[in-house]
């Protein structure tokens, strides 16, 4: 099979923020129905899917039954990171640190120094942008087993750049000692929570909270730290995806199948250390277009990590990336934004067809 390599199109349509206070369209002006920005944490297309409530919080409680070393900290976001489940079950092992991410992270380091395994939660924007120096120096420099678990990764809220952590992976990938995990669904979160608790070092985990879709269980999937897992194989396209984008690549593969395109889905929930061996082995199988897919800016995330590893390894294959653009993203309803920025299964399928 041969591939045409079309001129690189921008990923997703351009932002609507054309200029300051530029008039936007209204329902009256274009006749279309407008969605409304939902609560800060919008649900992820859970309609029609089985969901599990608060998988992180419940997994942590389960772990805490047998592990006295587990403690929880939050910077005023227990309800929005599902840590409230743990706080209710283990009030004396829960520390409310207030709206103070820097001391929350430093205090987690202090607790780890004294032998505890702290799970510290906030939003991804605050951990990555505000507390970076503290994660680097107080935790990573001493390789302390603090688990930083953050809601609102990438584009999972319609509140705009203040809450959209579109570059958290890029920020954290350069931090030595730090393991980075981007789980896909409730099954992944449940298993990853247990795995990172057992890992003797610092971890940053992206979190989906509330009612989280359960997708991977039907594929007999098991999370393993540092491992990419083949969800299903295919001959024409190899998706390498992470986070909730694996839900989307699974669905995109179904749509492509209808058009006679056979797509494999390799789920890569550990961003660092990357499972280079599996990625190389799968990418090197001839005849497949390799497409990375991530809920993150095109800069510095999974796509760049995979692309660089393949080039360094001498695996030269057709290679494309689906990711968010290098832009300040719009505010709006999450389904609107996912459509606008090309993260939906339909958009992925269409994009891949245009590349074939």
């Amino acid at each position, binding site marked *: 099979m041969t591939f045409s390599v079309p001129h690189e199109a921008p990923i997703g349509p351009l932002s609507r923020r054309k200029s300051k206070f530029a008039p936007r369209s209204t329902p009256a002006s274009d006749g279309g129905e407008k969605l409304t920005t939902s609560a800060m944490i919008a649900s992820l297309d859970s309609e029609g899917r089985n969901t599990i409530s608060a998988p992180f919080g419940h997994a942590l409680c389960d772990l805490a039954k047998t592990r006295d070393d587990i*403690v929880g900290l939050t910077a005023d976001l227990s309800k929005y990171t599902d840590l409230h489940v743990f706080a209710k079950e283990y009030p004396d092992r829960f*520390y409310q*640190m*207030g709206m*103070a991410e*820097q*001391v929350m*992270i*430093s*205090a*987690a*380091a*202090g*607790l*780890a*120094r*004294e*032998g*505890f395994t*702290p799970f510290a939660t906030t939003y991804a924007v605050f951990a990555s942008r505000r507390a970076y*120096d*503290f994660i*680097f*120096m*107080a935790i990573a*420099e*001493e390789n302390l087993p603090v688990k930083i678990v953050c809601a609102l990764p990438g584009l999972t809220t319609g509140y705009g750049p203040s809450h959209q952590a579109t570059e958290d992976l890029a920020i954290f990938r350069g931090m030595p000692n730090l393991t980075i995990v981007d789980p896909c669904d409730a099954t992944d979160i449940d298993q990853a929570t247990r795995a990172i608790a057992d890992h003797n070092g610092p971890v940053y985990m992206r979190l989906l909270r509330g009612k989280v879709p359960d997708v991977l269980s039907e594929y007999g999937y098991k999370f393993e730290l540092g491992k990419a897992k083949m969800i299903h194989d295919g001959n024409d396209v190899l998706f390498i995806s992470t986070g909730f984008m694996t839900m989307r690549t699974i669905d995109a593969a179904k749509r492509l199948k209808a058009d006679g395109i056979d797509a494999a889905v390799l789920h890569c929930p550990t961003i660092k250390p990357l499972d280079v061996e599996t990625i190389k082995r799968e990418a090197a199988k001839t005849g497949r277009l390799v497409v990375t897919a991530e809920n993150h800016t095109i800069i510095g995330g999974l796509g760049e990590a995979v692309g660089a590893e393949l080039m360094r390894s001498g695996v030269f294959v057709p290679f494309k990336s689906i990711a968010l653009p290098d832009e300040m993203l719009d505010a709006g309803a999450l389904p609107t934004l996912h459509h606008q920025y090309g993260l939906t299964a339909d958009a992925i399928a269409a994009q891949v067809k245009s590349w074939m």
Partner: protein
Amino acid sequence: MAHPTSQHHSNTSLARRAWNIRRTALRMGAVQGQGYIGQALGVADVLAVSYFHALTHRPDDPEWEGRDRFFLSIGHYAIALYSAMIEAGILPDDELETYGMDDSRMPMSGMAAYTPGMEITGGSLGHGLGIAVGSALGLKRKNNPAFIYNLMSDGELGEGSTWEAVMSAVSHKLDNLICIVDFNDQQADGKTTNALATGRGTEAAKWAAFGWHAQEIDGNDMDAVVAAFDIARALQDPRPRVIICNTKMCKGVPFLEERDITHFIRVEADEWDKAIAILDKDMPQ
């Protein structure tokens, strides 16, 4: 009953300990021809009281679970802490000549992975007190009666994270946390009081307003330092404790005390011996 510590075995005066710490710091500075000697000379009295009066520790077992933890938030003060730890027998005296050299256990900025007894990696200022908050919480979880001491500088009063930690320590009633602020009124670009600090006589009130037990003392007055540490340790009160120690950069070496820019003081090659000679003329018993 506290475990016997080094001070209990010795009749050496705290003044002599401080003098030894100053002299060791000067010898280390002479090795490199540079170093944060102004800070080391200024804080030597505080360190003498810490290691030879206040801290419960075992020099031969710096990771002993029962020890008081002493955090050096100001990584660049490492020369001062190395000197104190050499004096305390935690580090060997014959290693001081490796200070700042490749493969040394005594790098220019203090790091936990390099040096026995160096509890945390400081240097990124405004970190120590926050870590101390977590360690104090951890000790309480373990019912460990040890204290956490965090030595920070007046320059760190400008870091927002310091004040997050100040509020957090009060919120969590950390009566096992003692913060020591070395107030020498110098930071890299000049006087701390020309930047964000408001100066001697005003800083303790800020901490007290946040809910800390706050003392402000002359950090080069040995009796005052001892008394302040005793009060901070003995207090039966759920408040965290701070001791603002007003110190003089380069204390004990008058010709250096008079220099203007003393954050990273320039000492000529021949002046190290001169400084040591001045100290030697005035050795306390």
